[in-house]
């Protein structure tokens, strides 16, 4: 299947005039005027609809395929959340319209803040960060602001385990901090001795995901918190894996001072082919004054935005208005539909699915990276043995899975586990879907012995075969150019 570029459907003078207002004279001085029209396609409405519908059909998605992408929580996105967040009154609201005309929306956001406080055990929530990485930025910036407010200017080191998401060290750099990496033990836990060696008067804090990106719960978290706090540092919780512990254990109770939540993971707002996300942050008491603004507050029986006037020590604004409001509404609707018991069921069934899938894959001859550990909501299979014995890589498995109609798990992350697949089934997948995935893995393992080339050259059934990434980076073709007439 191949779809031409939209520009190749274009013909000079073709238009979709139902979408045009009447032509009017523009009042632009000659020197400031555009002389040549931009390269936009001239196509009919049907051509647009057909083109982009066809493009959509070239994608794998949660709605069409099992999508066990580890660390991404690709669970079902309920349709009601989209439909109700797109009610015309919400869509047409200008962010600067007076608060009196936005009490319905603000009420939803306030209640969302309250629910997030409850599930995280924190003391304050700001919804404004627009994705997980911006939530991380807010968190580390708050830690830095806290130390600076105390005149503790030497605290510029952020400790990050070697298994951390790449966003963690990148965030520390953006906040003007220095990254100190510590190793993980062979059982997946943090190396406590290494932690003790690196903490000190320069420690601003530590960034942790728990369960970690290794798919296991950090059992000595209370001890870690004690060590970092005793050294004068703060604890940052990367909420990428919150789905694993929702309603079971709260970051605030584990000793974390600040967390970000990926509402597009745990609270099922759409991933959208790469966003929008939402990286709401929660803070403990010490960081309350530093939260990014605006935050929804109350005054009498009215809701209003709290700004720099209310939070003069805030790290400031991170978005043009107030973050991804439409995403927040979807998360709110999802949480209301789950309710109290539903919130706990999320982690229970996500964990059940992950452990079931792990047990079946182990029985089928695959190696778990952490054999004696309980899986959290995700787990790692290492294909190191198959790679050595059969000459097939984790990437070969991933590409061949596509032929079997499954989106590949996350590959080659975390970086410290060789030939790994990080698999996260989520709670919304049925047992028979998981069984189908195991069947495919068994079939691919058999092919790896009998016909390894089938894996090396996979995928075979998709719109394109394996793509030349080296060529893409060397012979850069980033925009289409019309053929020279």
């Amino acid at each position: 299947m191949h779809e031409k570029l939209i520009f190749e459907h274009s013909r000079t003078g073709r238009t979709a005039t139902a979408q045009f207002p009447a032509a009017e004279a523009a009042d632009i001085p000659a020197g400031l005027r555009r002389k040549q029209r931009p390269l936009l396609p001239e196509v009919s409405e049907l051509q647009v609809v057909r083109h982009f519908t066809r493009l959509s059909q070239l994608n794998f998605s949660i709605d069409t395929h099992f999508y066990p992408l580890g660390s991404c929580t690709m669970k079902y996105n309920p349709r009601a959340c989209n439909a109700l967040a797109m009610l015309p009154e919400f869509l047409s609201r200008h962010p600067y319209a007076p608060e009196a005309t936005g009490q319905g929306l603000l009420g939803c956001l306030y209640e969302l803040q309250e629910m997030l406080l409850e599930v995280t055990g924190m003391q304050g929530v700001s919804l404004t960060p627009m994705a997980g990485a911006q939530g991380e930025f807010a968190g580390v910036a708050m830690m830095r602001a806290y130390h600076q407010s105390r005149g503790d200017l030497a605290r510029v080191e952020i400790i990050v385990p070697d298994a951390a998401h790449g966003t963690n060290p990148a965030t520390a750099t953006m906040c003007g901090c220095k990254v100190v990496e510590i190793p993980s033990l062979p059982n997946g836990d943090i190396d406590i001795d290494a932690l003790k060696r690196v903490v000190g008067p320069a420690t601003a804090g530590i960034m942790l995901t728990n369960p970690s990106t290794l798919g296991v719960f950090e059992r000595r978290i209370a001890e870690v918190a004690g060590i970092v706090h005793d050294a004068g540092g703060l604890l940052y919780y990367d909420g990428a894996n919150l789905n694993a512990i929702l309603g079971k254990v709260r970051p605030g109770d584990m000793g974390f001072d600040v967390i970000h939540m990926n509402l597009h993971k745990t609270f099922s707002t759409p991933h959208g082919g790469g966003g929008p996300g939402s990286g709401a942050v929660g803070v403990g008491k010490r960081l309350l004054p530093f939260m990014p603004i605006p935050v929804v507050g109350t005054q009498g029986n009215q809701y209003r935005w709290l700004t720099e006037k209310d939070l003069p020590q805030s790290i400031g604004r991170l978005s043009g208005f107030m973050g991804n409001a439409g995403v927040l509404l979807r998360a709110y609707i999802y949480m209301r539909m789950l309710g109290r018991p539903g919130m706990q069921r999320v982690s229970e069934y996500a964990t059940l699915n992950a452990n079931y899938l792990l047990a079946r894959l182990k029985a089928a001859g695959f190696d778990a990276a952490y054999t004696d550990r309980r899986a959290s909501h995700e787990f790692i299979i290492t294909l190191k043995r198959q790679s050595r014995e059969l000459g097939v890589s984790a990437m070969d498995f991933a590409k061949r899975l596509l032929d079997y109609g499954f989106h590949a798990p996350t590959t080659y992350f975390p970086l410290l586990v060789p030939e790994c697949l990080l698999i996260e089934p989520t709670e919304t997948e049925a047992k028979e879907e998981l069984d189908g995935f195991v069947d495919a893995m068994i079939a691919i393992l058999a092919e790896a012995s009998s016909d390894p080339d089938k894996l090396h050259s996979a995928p075979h059934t998709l719109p394109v075969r394996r793509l030349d990434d080296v060529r893409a980076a060397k012979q850069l073709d980033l925009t289409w150019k019309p053929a020279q007439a």
Partner: protein
Amino acid sequence: MPFIPHTDADVRDMLATIGVPNIDALFDEIPSSLRCGVLACIPEALTEMDVGRLMQERAAQDGRPLNFIGAGAYEHHIPAAVWSIVSRGEFYSAYTPYQAEASQGTLQLLYEYQTMIASLTGMQVANASLYDGASAVAEAALMAVRAHRRSTSARILMPTTLNPVYRQVTRAIAGNQSLNFEMLPYVPGSGTIDATALDKWKGQDVTALVIQQPNFFGQLEDVDALTDWAHANGALVIAVVNPTSLALLKPPGEWGQKGVDIVVGEGQPLGVPLAGGGPYIGFMTTRMEHVRQMPGRIVGRTLDLDGKPGFTLTLQAREQHIRRSKATSNICTNQGLLVTAATIYLSLVGPEGLERVAAASQARTRELVAALTKVRGVRAVFNGPRFHEAVLTLDRPVGPVLEALAVQGIVGGYSLAEHYPELGNALLVCATETRNSNDIARYAAALASLLS
């Protein structure tokens, strides 16, 4: 159980396979002292019908007032086809196209988007999006510091005609990396950058000059002269632009003798609803020579094993998942779904449609300014050409007037009291092609009766 498909029999089978007696046993690695109790503050579950009723009530509470605010977010007509396609599950529920072969739809769309936005801004390359216009300015400032190897000052000249919230966001995001932001004042009569203020920086190490066109007041800056000044003084130029305006206005790639170096802006006007402030789209384009300093995802066209063209994420060595602490930015998830909307929007309106939207918006604002300045006590503040926004002053404080208008279902503009107190009782107003003469007359009449 909402959204969980397991039957009792499934659960029994699965637990037996795992070899544990119950689900709770799967959490036995969490120390019991840390386990939380009932989440008392979470309300009981609602059915879809009940949550539907709740949301309808909340929406009705807010209503649909007649809007005359722009200030960085603009109410344009969005063709029905845009969100009907964007809401397709294949776009809505896919993720970042890490598995290129299973994501050709998203990847090709991003390549088409990069082509359109690069051409619209007159630049060579674009990324696949940043969060929004404000954070895009911060990323552009950081990128300029990386790209300008001869400049060591990390000094960014920011005019006060740049959206004040963009200035705040840029400080909040880029300030931690020791950038120096210097303000440039505006000329009171024209509401544009005071070029004489640039003299102070002549011969000094300036990393970049930021120019917003049209500026926050809606006024048009002398972009050619400003760009040439910056280049003559060894500084890069960061343009902050409204994409709709570029159908009519000279693209930043053609400003001055050489064109600007980095272009950013808010892509919301291109098919994205106001939606209370987001999600929107930050766009960024640049010259090819700076592409490796650009943050965010970039899609390239390449060939597959059979020599057939296909699309993939490229230049990933800039990004956090490869380069970690040395990445160009920490950005990961961006605004993919909104880029989908913008690409479909630009395809539907095409070059002529976008020109007409821009011209009609400018005409409606002209009409609005004419109608409102006929009201006693209202006058326009700045002279000179503008796009589709204007600053007006009232003969009394703006806040209470806006509140009184809101009671009548009119959102009358954005008060400049907080950010520009020197302008007195000033108000920024906007009308796009979605406002008609009746709407404008209704606003003018309401204002006249309030000010009488």
